[in-house]
């Protein structure tokens, strides 16, 4: 007899305020899928801000839940190492894809520096006109007055176009980028269900093959400011292609870094303005609030829920004894709701004071390298939306992805209303 497939529902989740603290597993991806994680983290911040979970599907781990503790761990890379693992679940030993976000100095330093020129403020200023043109074309094409999925029409397409530009990737094949990005983040290591490592490997092998061809082409051409050309011409990274897994790892890093994160902040902004309609009114009355709103969107969304470190030595931290080798998970999603640092943290306030003071980009040497790209895309998008539309109306509950790492959406049903 076939067993019925059990789909977990929100009511299967334990009560956040009565579950014993040692049974509290905030890494359960279902919490994020159902948008129920908030109360669990509120309790940890209050009762046990540096929390040890002795047993989970990812092994034992520490949770760092308060803003300033996250800053302290994130900026202490000598004790809290990024080597090999930056998500809660360990990478598979037989499919290790080294990437600079998961390296300590010195390798991290020179690989990161090799690709940074693609996303400096100066380089971005040169791209702004092109990005605006594309945003305008997408918005002008939007069906007005009918139900559409904002994720597919705008969030995914816009970030994909931007990413294609940063890689100078063949534009007609650009849909491959989010396909590879989703394949790499949909992993058992972050609690995603229904995927096997084998399927993931097969797709990522295609990604490697495609980019291998691009690399050869760029290496033979004069240097340019796209990621592949920068890597192929930098004396310290020009041999990366000889280590295919390391090449793949860094590709995944750059693709995911520029994809999921901004995509989900673009979707989140629409959701938040609908859930906080007074803020939408404020925005209509004063579009000069957009740059500040962009930071608030990135805080409120927190597109990456966590980053993980591994302790290199025994250390006492906030009265707790962290042992060498322990997993230490910094929950950005919790730091961004820390009542002691952020005033009325559960409210979306577009003219919030010090809106840039959030942990979504991380801190220390691994801080997000593409932060200015993300901010620019969101700013231009909202500037152009406000010129055209009275409202992007949310007409149903968003569908969220099942992951304790990527906080995002697959469906954000909206109706676009003309001005």
């Amino acid at each position, binding site marked *: 007899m076939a067993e019925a497939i059990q789909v977990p529902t929100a009511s299967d989740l334990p009560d956040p305020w009565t579950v014993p603290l040692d049974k509290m597993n905030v890494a359960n991806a279902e919490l994020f899928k159902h948008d129920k994680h908030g109360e669990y983290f509120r309790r940890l911040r209050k009762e046990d801000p540096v929390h040890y979970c002795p047993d989970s599907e990812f092994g034992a781990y520490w949770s760092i839940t308060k803003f300033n503790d996250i*800053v302290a761990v994130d900026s202490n890379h000598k004790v809290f190492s990024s080597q090999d693992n930056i998500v809660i679940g360990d990478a598979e030993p037989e499919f290790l894809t080294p990437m600079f976000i998961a390296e300590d100095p010195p390798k991290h330093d020179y690989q990161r*520096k090799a690709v940074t020129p693609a996303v*400096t403020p100066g380089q971005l200023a040169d791209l702004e006109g092109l990005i605006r043109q594309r945003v305008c074309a997408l918005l002008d094409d939007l069906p007005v007055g009918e139900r559409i999925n904002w994720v597919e029409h705008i969030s995914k397409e816009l970030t994909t176009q931007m990413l294609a530009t940063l890689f100078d990737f063949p534009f007609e094949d650009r849909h491959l980028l989010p396909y590879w990005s989703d394949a790499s983040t949909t992993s058992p290591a972050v609690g995603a269900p229904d995927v096997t490592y084998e399927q993931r490997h097969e797709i990522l092998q295609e990604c490697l093959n495609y980019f291998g061809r691009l690399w050869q082409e760029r290496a033979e051409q004069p240097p340019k400011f796209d990621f592949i050309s920068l890597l192929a011409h930098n004396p310290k990274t020009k041999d990366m292609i000889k280590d295919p897994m390391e090449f793949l790892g860094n590709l995944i890093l750059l693709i995911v870094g520029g994809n999921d994160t901004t995509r989900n902040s673009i979707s989140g902004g629409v959701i938040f303005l609908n859930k906080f309609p007074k803020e939408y009114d404020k925005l209509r009355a004063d579009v000069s609030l957009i740059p500040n709103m962009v930071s608030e969107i990135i805080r409120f969304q927190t597109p990456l829920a966590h980053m993980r470190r591994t302790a290199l030595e025994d250390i006492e931290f906030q009265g707790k004894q962290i042992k060498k080798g322990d997993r230490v998970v910094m929950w950005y999603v919790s730091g961004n709701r820390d009542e002691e640092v952020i005033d009325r943290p559960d409210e979306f306030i577009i003219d919030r004071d010090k809106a840039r003071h959030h942990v979504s980009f991380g*801190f*220390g*040497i691994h*801080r997000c*390298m593409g932060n200015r790209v993300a901010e620019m895309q969101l700013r231009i998008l909202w500037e152009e939306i406000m010129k055209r539309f009275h409202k992007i109306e949310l007409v149903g509950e968003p569908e969220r992805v099942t992951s304790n790492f990527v906080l995002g959406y697959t469906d954000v049903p909206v109706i676009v209303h003309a001005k």
Partner: protein
Amino acid sequence: MPKVTFIEHNGTRHELDADSGLSLMEVAVANSVPGIDADCGGACACATCHVYVDESWLGKVGDKTDMETSMLDFAEGVQDSSRLACQITLSAELDGLIAQLPESQH
């Protein structure tokens, strides 16, 4: 009360009275000097308060910590006179300090 001057990339000068004990970053933020983001709030963890300290003052503002050196390593347009403003504490000795701002923070 030490006086400090910030010079924006476009040449705009901000001459400010500062309280001793505050960081150079805090003075800029409190007076809304454009071009200092200070995202991390003064923890030497983001490098968005990058300034160029006028040569004649470099010897007086104290040494960089390893962390400041690491963070500056990833900032844009770094020069010998680059510092993170959150790591410079003002005192009577720094009365007259001049700091130039970079074109942008990364």
